Structure formats: structure tokens, C-alpha cells
């Protein structure tokens, strides 16, 4: 896709110039010209009184340097910390199975570090094959050895699609792998599908601070690489009787210029709770004061839930950052998310909109949070919540 100016229609009126957040429109020979700094945000499309600014499909991109068809299969790079595989890996095996089926190909997992029983869990969660290295160099996460071995495996086995979690480790070493094998990488995808016509991977991700969603393609290079945040995809089927092969990979020759000397855990109770809780009661600036969170705490207590917050509430210092939900906070996916006095800015929505049931309480009937809510309560949190708490207590006989 590209944004271009139709010179025949452009009158040089300059209306579009100020619409561009990137200052990418300049006047050239009395016509608007969109220069190389266009980020495809489309802000200019509507403003042109002549309709001279257009969006066009483009086929250009890197030339077809790799033999695309020789790449087959979907791979999930499974992250482990302290020898335990992170849940996001199982979620990706769920998504990976769908993609593999659509491509009529196999699903493999790659595991560095951890022991054989963990490799077996990957098979129970749906992998047909696991490439597993138990080399000591993988005990802690260091980018270089991870990059080295994964790149070698890619060159040898040529997967078509390669996924991992958008966690601090995934986001740190996957870009290097992409650069080494010379392919594209799409960060923080919220949806992955196969284009039935071309067989390409359609990678959807939030862009521009989450204000818009973009579909990204990597049409001419392989593998197609993507990271996905934890809790965005649903886990696949767990089958204790599932079978598959585990291939042991040697990595004795691999070294690292960085060295982890210590790993420190600083998990507060709330952080764990937040991402694992079935119910999250979240508060925003609409609570108006720190005491509002005591009311949320009471409700959360009754529902066995955890406390979330918008960035505005965190910025007000009503609650610590570890509770923040959204683009720069945690991504959560509870069964019930209750948003109290949260407007529903996209940066917040991207962190919670895949929750099963969303209940929103807001004074403003036009608040965007209602666009994602299953249950919309237009009202004052200080009038509605106390009654809800009261009624819940009655139900529970407290």
C-alpha cells in the first residue's frame, strides 16, 4: 500500500500539508508531494477537497530472492525461564496449529534449555516435532547463542512461518534472527491468518499507539516471522497421549559475548494475579480519588479477582504501575473484565479487549470503552458499584 497524490486533481491548495503527523507532504512544483517519510497513517486522505490523495496497492518490495516454495511448516519458538516453558508458547502452538492446517504442513516447536519432560509438554500441547537443545549455554537467556542456533536451524530446515512470544526475551533476540536470515518481522501481532489466495501470512498489529490496526505482509522473503503478546491467542488442545518426535540438537561450539551473572525475581503478588486472574476489576481516572480503589478492592475480593488500572490512574499515583493494563502495561485476558471510570483509549483497549466478558461502567454514554463492552452501564461508579457490591453480598449470604 502507498499513499500518492494525483497530480491532475491536485490544485496545490496546501490543505493537506498540516494534516500529516510526519510532515511528509511538501509542495513541489505547486503540487502536493508525499515524500519518503510517509508512514501510511492515512491522515491526509480525507482532508483533500479535490480527492486527489489516494491509497494504492503496490506490488513492489524486496525482490523474490529466496526460493519461497522450499520453505515449509510452522515453527513456534518456545520460551523457557528457569527450565519452565512460558504459557505463551502453548498459546502459540494453538495458533500455529491453525496456520499449519491451513498450509497443510507440520507444526514444530523449538526449545533451548529445559529438560526432556518440558520438550514432551510441547508435544502434548500440539507440536508434531520438537527441536531441543539442552546445551548448558542456554541455561540463562543470552541473545547471541539463541540467535546463532535458531538461525542455523532455520537455514537447515527452512520453516515457512516462525512465531514466538512478544516477551522481553522474544522481542530482544527475534529481531536479530530476522536480520541474520534477512527477512521481515512483525511485532506484537493480535491476529494471524493465512491469505487463502496467496498463502501469505496476514499479520495484524496495532499501529500508531494503537489508534489503528495494520495488516502486515512479508510476501517475498521466508520465513515469515512474528511475535505475539502473551494472552492474545487461546491455547490449543492439551492431549497427554499426543505423540511426536523430539530431535536433540548439539550446540557445544556456541559461545556468548554477554553473560548473565544473576537473575533476580521481583514478582509482586498483584502482578502474577493480574495475568492469571479470572476476574479483573479495573479503575481509571473516572474514580476521581485514591479511595475509589478501595471500593474496587472490595468488589474484587467478592469475585476472587485482581485489580487493574488505566495509565491515567497509575499516573495519578492511585495505584502502582504493576497494575497497569494496556499497550505499555500488561495484556490480560480474564473471563470477566470490569472497567470502572475508564474511557477506553485504544492504548488501554489493546491490553484487555480479548477478555471473554467486558463490563463497563462510565458516566459518558459515548465513551469508547462501550464499543468493546458486552455489558454497558451508563452511570456514576459511586452510585452503581456500591449497589452491585451490596447485591453480591446478598447473593453470597455475607
Amino acid at each position, binding site marked *: 500500500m502507498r499513499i500518492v497524490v494525483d497530480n491532475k486533481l491536485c490544485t496545490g491548495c496546501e490543505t493537506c500539508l498540516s494534516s500529516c503527523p510526519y510532515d511528509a507532504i511538501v509542495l513541489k512544483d505547486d503540487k502536493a508531494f508525499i515524500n519518503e517519510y510517509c508512514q501510511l497513517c492515512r491522515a491526509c486522505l480525507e482532508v483533500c477537497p479535490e480527492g486527489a490523495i489516494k491509497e494504492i496497492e503496490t506490488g513492489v518490495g524486496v525482490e523474490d530472492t529466496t526460493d519461497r516454495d522450499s520453505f515449509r511448516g510452522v515453527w513456534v519458538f518456545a520460551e523457557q525461564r528457569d527450565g519452565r516453558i512460558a504459557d505463551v508458547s502453548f498459546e502459540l502452538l494453538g495458533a500455529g496449529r491453525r496456520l499449519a492446517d491451513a498450509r497443510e504442513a507440520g507444526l514444530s516447536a523449538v526449545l533451548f534449555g529445559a529438560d526432556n519432560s518440558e520438550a514432551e509438554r510441547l508435544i502434548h500441547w500440539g507440536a508434531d516435532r520438537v527441536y531441543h537443545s539442552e546445551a548448558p549455554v542456554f541455561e540463562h537467556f543470552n541473545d547471541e547463542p539463541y540467535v546463532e542456533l535458531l538461525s542455523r536451524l532455520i537455514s537447515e530446515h527452512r520453516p515457512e512461518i516462525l512465531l514466538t512470544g512478544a516477551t522481553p526475551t522474544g522481542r530482544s533476540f527475534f529481531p536479530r534472527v530476522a*536480520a541474520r536470515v534477512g527477512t*521481515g518481522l512483525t511485532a506484537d501481532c493480535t491476529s494471524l491468518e493465512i491469505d487463502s489466495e496467496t498463502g501469505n501470512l496476514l499479520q495484524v498489529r496495532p499501529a500508531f499507539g494503537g489508534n489503528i490496526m495494520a495488516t502486515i*505482509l*512479508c510476501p517475498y522473503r521466508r520465513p515469515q516471522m512474528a511475535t505475539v503478546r502473551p494472552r492474545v491467542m487461546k491455547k490449543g488442545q492439551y492431549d497427554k497421549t499426543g505423540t511426536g518426535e523430539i530431535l536433540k540438537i548439539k550446540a557445544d561450539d556456541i559461545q556468548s559475548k554477554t553473560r548473565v551473572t544473576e537473575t533476580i525475581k521481583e514478582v509482586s503478588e498483584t502482578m502474577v494475579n493480574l495475568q492469571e486472574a479470572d476476574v479483573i476489576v479495573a479503575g481509571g481516572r473516572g474514580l476521581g480519588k485514591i479511595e475509589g480503589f478501595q471500593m474496587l478492592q472490595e468488589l474484587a475480593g467478592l469475585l476472587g479477582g485482581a485489580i487493574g488500572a488505566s495509565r491515567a490512574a497509575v499516573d495519578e499515583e492511585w495505584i502502582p504501575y504493576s497494575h497497569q493494563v494496556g499497550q505499555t502495561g500488561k495484556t490480560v485476558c480474564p473471563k470477566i473484565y470490569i472497567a470502572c471510570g475508564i474511557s477506553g483509549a485504544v492504548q488501554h483497549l489493546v491490553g484487555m479487549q480479548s477478555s471473554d466478558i467486558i463490563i463497563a461502567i462510565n458516566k459518558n454514554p459515548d465513551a469508547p470503552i462501550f464499543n468493546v463492552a458486552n455489558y*454497558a452501564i451508563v452511570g456514576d461508579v459511586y452510585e452503581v458499584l456500591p449497589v452491585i457490591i451490596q447485591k453480591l453480598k446478598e447473593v453470597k449470604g455475607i
Partner: protein
Amino acid sequence: MKIIVCIKQVPDTAEVRINPETNTLIRDGVPSIINPFDLHAIEAGLHLKSELGGTVTVLTMGPPQAEDALREAISMGADEAVLLTDRAFAGSDTLATAYTMSSAVRTIGFDIILCGKQAIDGDTAQVGPEMAEFLNIPHVAYVGKFEEINAGMLRVQRLMDEGYDVVETSVPVLLTVVKELNQPRLPSLKGKMKAKKSVIKKLTHPDIGTEEKNLGLAGSPTQVKNIFAPEAKKDRKVLTGTPGEQAAQLIEELKSLKCI
């Protein structure tokens, strides 16, 4: 010690709103700012310089007006600024950006390269690690604290989901930094004066020895297919009435869903 800080000029996304009807961004004078994480990278560069000596060079790849960002960095205390600008860089994705930037830092010379954790317009966090790969040097992402620094070795804390790792790395190295690392200083008056007078060095494609086929749109493996607005939920129930009635309806709904 030659320290390079990569900074990007971005629109302040906090100010950007979307028009839900037309699915386009409303600009309304959204200011251009230095990517917030890059301010922490600049501060880190100045700190490393004060400990190890040397110079801090700020580098940006962007349009001519990105000079403003570079001058702001000089007013904070950077020694020199380089603007990487060329029509051939048009439409670069992260891989092409990292390729171009790494060629530039190789031309300039470096010991330590600092980047922000991510740029707030794209939030990809890929350019830093990809640059390190092109330069064939180690990198540490999400640096939240310097524990020990000397000319040959850095010991830093890398923030993880559940705490942090202490990582030792040799120099040359590339670090991407998070906001926990420091508090960026404000420009000084003297700095502002210096910024006004400073000559910004410009580098183009021929200056940095890049290969044309790896630049811009042609060198970008990823393409944007389309852009759309986040979807609204379809099965929405509006609970009406007095607060008491609303609460009662909600409890009934939750009961019927077996949530309570």
C-alpha cells in the same frame, strides 16, 4: 569512548485521536517530539561520557525537519549530531532502517550505541537489536540500570517480566534502554545557545556505502497491506434504569453465565 545515541522524531501519539467515522487520524497540530524512550538514551549517553570520557553523537534517520530533534539533543549536552537523510531511504521498514543506520554508525565510528526501548509511533522495538546484528556486536535490550561500567566491560540490569537479569557484556555493544534507567535532564541555557550555533552533519546514501537494493521500500521485506480501525463488539447489552436496577440486571446476567 565514542558513544552514539540513536533518536527518532515522532508525532506525540498521546495527542493523536482517531476520527471513528472516517477511520483516519486527526492531527490538529500534534507536536513532533523526540521519542520519549530516546530521551533516556541521551541521558544514558551523557552519563557514560561523564564516567568514561569521550564524546556523545546523536544520530537520526529522518526528514530534514528532524534536525529539530538533533538540536534539542545538543541542548541537553550531546557533542555532535548527524542527520541521515536521503530519498533512497523512502519507505524503510525496521530491517532497512537498521541496515541504513548500522552503515552510518560504522562510518562515524563507535564504541557504545544507545537506543530507546522502542519508538512510540511503531512500538516495534526491533531497530536496536537488528542494528547490533548488522554490526556483529552484542546487544542488551531493556537496560534498566548500570551496575558497573568501565572501558572494556559493562554490567547492567536487563528488565524482564518477573524482575531482572544482571548481564555482563564486552564493549563495543548496543544497549536499548527503558525509562527506569534515569531521569532525562532538561536542556540548559548554555546548551540551547550551543544548539542554535551547531552545524548538523548530513549523511546520504553515497556517504555511508550502502547498497541500493537494501534501502527503502526495495530493501523492506515487510509491507503494509491495509489499515483499519479496531472493531466494536457486536453483542452488547446496555443495562438501563436506576443504579439499583442496573446492578440487579448485571447480577442476573452474571448468574446466568454461571460467573457467580
